[in-house]
C-alpha cells in the first residue's frame, strides 16, 4: 500500500516503512540507542534524499526513546541528574558540530567526514565492547564472580575537582569528565546526524562505571531531548522534516521499542554489551566497505540552493 510523502516528494510503501520503524525500534529499546545510525542509511536506501532522511529520523528516534524512557522510569532505572548534566555540555557540542557540518558540506567532503567518523568510531567502539564483554562472559562461564567494581583501578580523572554524587547511578565523580562526554556526544551527533546513543552507552559504562541498566534509561532521556530539539531545528532551518514519513516510522518504532526494552531486561548486562558491540562493529565495517571498495559510480549529484 503506497502513500505519497509530501515533503520528501515521493511515494513509499506504508508497511515497508512502518516495518523498518519496528525493527529499528526494537534494537533501540533493547540497547538504549536511538537507532538513527541504522535508520538513516535504510531511508536513503529506499530512495529518500539524505537531507530529508536525517531531518525526519529525529522524531522517530524521539518517539522510540520516549516510550523506552517511560519504561525505564517505571523500573527506576534512569538517572535524571546525570542525563541533565550530560545534556548541558551536549548542547555546546551540538552547536560546534552543526557549524563544522555546514563547513564540510560546502567543501563537498561531508560524505567523507561522516564515513570516516562512522568507520573509526564504530569499529573501535564495537571491537572494545566485544572484547570486554566476551571476557566478562567467559569469566561467568568459568564460575568466577563478575568484576563489578574495582575500587583500586580508578581512572586518572577520578582525581579531578568538582565532585558530584549521582545517587541513582551509584557513582561519585567529578563533573568534568561528565561534561567532556556530553560535549563529545553532542559534537559527534551533530556531524553524523545521530543521537550518539551507541557512543554514550559504552562511555558511561567504561569510563564512569555506571551500571548497564541505568545507562540505557539515562541514554534514552538524553536521546529524547536531543532529538526533539533536532526535529524543531531541522523544521525551522531546512524545512525538510516529512511528518507523514515521521509518523509511519514512529508507529512502528514505539511498538518495537516496547518489545525491545522488555527483551533487553531479560538479557545479562555483559551479553547485551556483546550484542551491541557486534551490531556497532558490523555497521562500522559496512561503512569501511563503502570507503575502500571502488564505487559503482564515481559521480554523484546533490541539489544546491539557488543563490
Amino acid at each position: 500500500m503506497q502513500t505519497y510523502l509530501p515533503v520528501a516528494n515521493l511515494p513509499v510503501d506504508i508497511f515497508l516503512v512502518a516495518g523498518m520503524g519496528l525493527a529499528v525500534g526494537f534494537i533501540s529499546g533493547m540497547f538504549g540507542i536511538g537507532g538513527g545510525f541504522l535508520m538513516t542509511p535504510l531511508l536513503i536506501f529506499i530512495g529518500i534524499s539524505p537531507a530529508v532522511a536525517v531531518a525526519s529520523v529525529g522524531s522517530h528516534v524521539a518517539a522510540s526513546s520516549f516510550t523506552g524512557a517511560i519504561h525505564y522510569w517505571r523500573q527506576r532505572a534512569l538517572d535524571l541528574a546525570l542525563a541533565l548534566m550530560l545534556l548541558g555540555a551536549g548542547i555546546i557540542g551540538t552547536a560546534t558540530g552543526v557549524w563544522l557540518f555546514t563547513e564540510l558540506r560546502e567543501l563537498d567532503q561531508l560524505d567523507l567526514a561522516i564515513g570516516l567518523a562512522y568507520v573509526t568510531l564504530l569499529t573501535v567502539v564495537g571491537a572494545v565492547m566485544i572484547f570486554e564483554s566476551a571476557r566478562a562472559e567467559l569469566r561467568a562461564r568459568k564460575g568466577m564472580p563478575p568484576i563489578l567494581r574495582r575500587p583500586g583501578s580508578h581512572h586518572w580523572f577520578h582525581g579531578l575537582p568538582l565532585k558530584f554524587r549521582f545517587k541513582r547511578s551509584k557513582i561519585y565523580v567529578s563533573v568534568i569528565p561528565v561534561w567532556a562526554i556530553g560535549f563529545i556526544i553532542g559534537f559527534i551527533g551533530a556531524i553524523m546526524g545521530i543521537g550518539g546513543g551507541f557512543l554514550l552507552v559504552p562511555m558511561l559504562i567504561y569510563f564512569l562505571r555506571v551500571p548497564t541498566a541505568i545507562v540505557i534509561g539515562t541514554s534514552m532521556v538524553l536521546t529524547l531531548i536531543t532529538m526533539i530539539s533536532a526535529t524543531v531545528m531541522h523544521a525551522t532551518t531546512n524545512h525538510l522534516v516529512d511528518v507523514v514519513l515521521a509518523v509511519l516510522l514512529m508507529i512502528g518504532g514505539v511498538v518495537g521499542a516496547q518489545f525491545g526494552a522488555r527483551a533487553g531486561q531479560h538479557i545479562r548486562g555483559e551479553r547485551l554489551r556483546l550484542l551491541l558491540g557486534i551490531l556497532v562493529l558490523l555497521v562500522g565495517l559496512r561503512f569501511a566497505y563503502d570507503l575502500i571498495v571502488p564505487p559503482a559510480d564515481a559521480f554523484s549529484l546533490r541539489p544546491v540552493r539557488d543563490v
Partner: protein
Amino acid sequence: MPRLVLAMVLVLLAHPAAAERLVVSLSNHRVQITSSFAGEDVVLFGTVEPDRGQAALKQGYDLVVTVTGPRETFRTRRKERVAGIWVNVDSREFVRVPSYLAVLTNRPVADIANPETLRSLQVGLDNFLLPQRIGPDIADTVRNDPYRVAFVRLESEHGLYREAPNAVTFLTPTVFRAAIPLPADIPTGTFGIDVKLFSGGALVARTNSALEVIKVGFEQYVADAARDYGLLYGVVTALIALLTGWLASVVFRRD
C-alpha cells in the same frame, strides 16, 4: 535595396514552410499530487495543418516534444581514490538546469535533421543547453564532457531526464500523439512543453504549451506548513512523537 531583397530571401529560406500550422492539446494541464500519486502519463495530442496541399505530406513530418521542469541548480561530484579511500575530489555546478527534461520524438533525433540544426534548436539531450559554472563563467560544455555525461546519466537513472525516440506516434500523417511520463518523484511547479515540427530536415512549425504539477489537499497543506511555518510544524511533529511514545507505553503497560 538589393540588401533588403537578400534579407527577405534569407528569411524565406529559413522558414520555407512557415505557413504550416501546429495545434496541440494536453490530456491534463494540471497534474494533482494526492496521497495515492505514483507517477502519471500526460498525453499530448495534436494535428498539423499543411498549407501547401498534399505535396508537403510526401516528405513526412518529424515531431520533437521537449518538456522542461522547474529549474534547479545541481552539483555533480567526482570521486577518486586518495590514500586508499574514495573521496570527492572535484565538482561542477549545473546552474538553473531543468529538474525534469524529456525529449520525445517519432524517430531517433539524429535522423530528424543535420547536427547543426539540432544544435542550434537544442533538440535532444546532447544538444540541450546545460550551463555549468566553470570558474567565474557560466557556460555549456562540449557534449562529451565527463561531468555533463555523468549529470545526464544520473538524472536519466532517476527517470527525470529521458530521450525517447519512439514516444511520438503519428496516428495519420497529420495527427500525432505523445505520452509524457511523469515519474512518482516529480518536482512540483510549471513544466514547459515545446513542440517542434520538422519536414525534410528543417523546422517548419513550432508551438508551445505548459502543464502544472501541484500538490492538493492534505499533501499541499503539509508541504505548505513545512515551508511557511517551520517552527510550528517542528513543534507539532515533536509533540506527535511524544504522544505516540506515550500512547505506546500506555497500551503496552503490563500491570
